[in-house]
């Protein structure tokens, strides 16, 4: 999904109309980063003796 958005963005000639896609990509990246950290923290918590 993020790859499609990325392709759409880089193939545009005018970025001004691609604001929504860029925002969606950034939000998805933000959520992915959050989830990555969250899952890692939960795993550490469960492995804690």
């Amino acid at each position: 999904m993020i790859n499609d958005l990325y392709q759409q963005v880089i193939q545009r000639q005018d970025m001004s109309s691609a604001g929504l896609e860029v925002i969606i990509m950034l939000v998805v990246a933000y959520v992915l980063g959050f989830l990555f950290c969250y899952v890692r923290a939960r795993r550490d918590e469960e492995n804690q003796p």
Partner: protein
Amino acid sequence: MTPMSSIAGTFGSASLTIILLLLAAFLAGMLSCQLLKLLGICCRRPRRAATTESVYLNVEPEIEPEASPQMYTRSIYSETPASAPKPPPSPGGPRIELRKPAPLVEAESTAGRSSFESRVKEMTGGNTPVAPDFRTEIGMRDDGQEDDLTRLEGIGPNTEKLLNEAGIRNYARLATMSRDDLRRILEAAGSQFKMQDPKSWPYQAELAARNNWDRLREYQEFLLHGRTR
């Protein structure tokens, strides 16, 4: 976001910028998760509530501490190094007399165990005396309730699960376990638990079973900060 425009064809030339933006967003997500974790809002397993209301109501323990002062005497000195400072007495708390253990207790060490047992056999004519039920003696009842063992210092959620699987579900039961038995349970569970030191757990569990939370907190403070690092 500021709209970007390019004179020279597509935005393929701006892909590096976009990738950097995505990376920045990813890192921002991680950072916010870390911040929430530090604030204690996310990523932490909720602890179960205490099983006894006495924790909050500060109810006096049902059993008088004078009933078996030797339990305190034996336990507190068995867990502390000789050079460690003694914990301060709790003002207004239960009167606990801290005495050095009797020389007979020293025979519990591995070296003196055989001679100790042989001496006991000689004294009793081969009939080993049956020890009275520890729980009945100090008034703790193992009524099958499930306590939150993670309140004890050194026991985490996984260790609690392990102890539960071994049939240790409450403080009274844990208080009756010997260190060797606990160590065997931990060693059997694998390398993850092997490094743990369960020697203070029975005493902590005994204090918890007596609802002696003030003393338990003092002892845990001593365990955490009283020993030489």
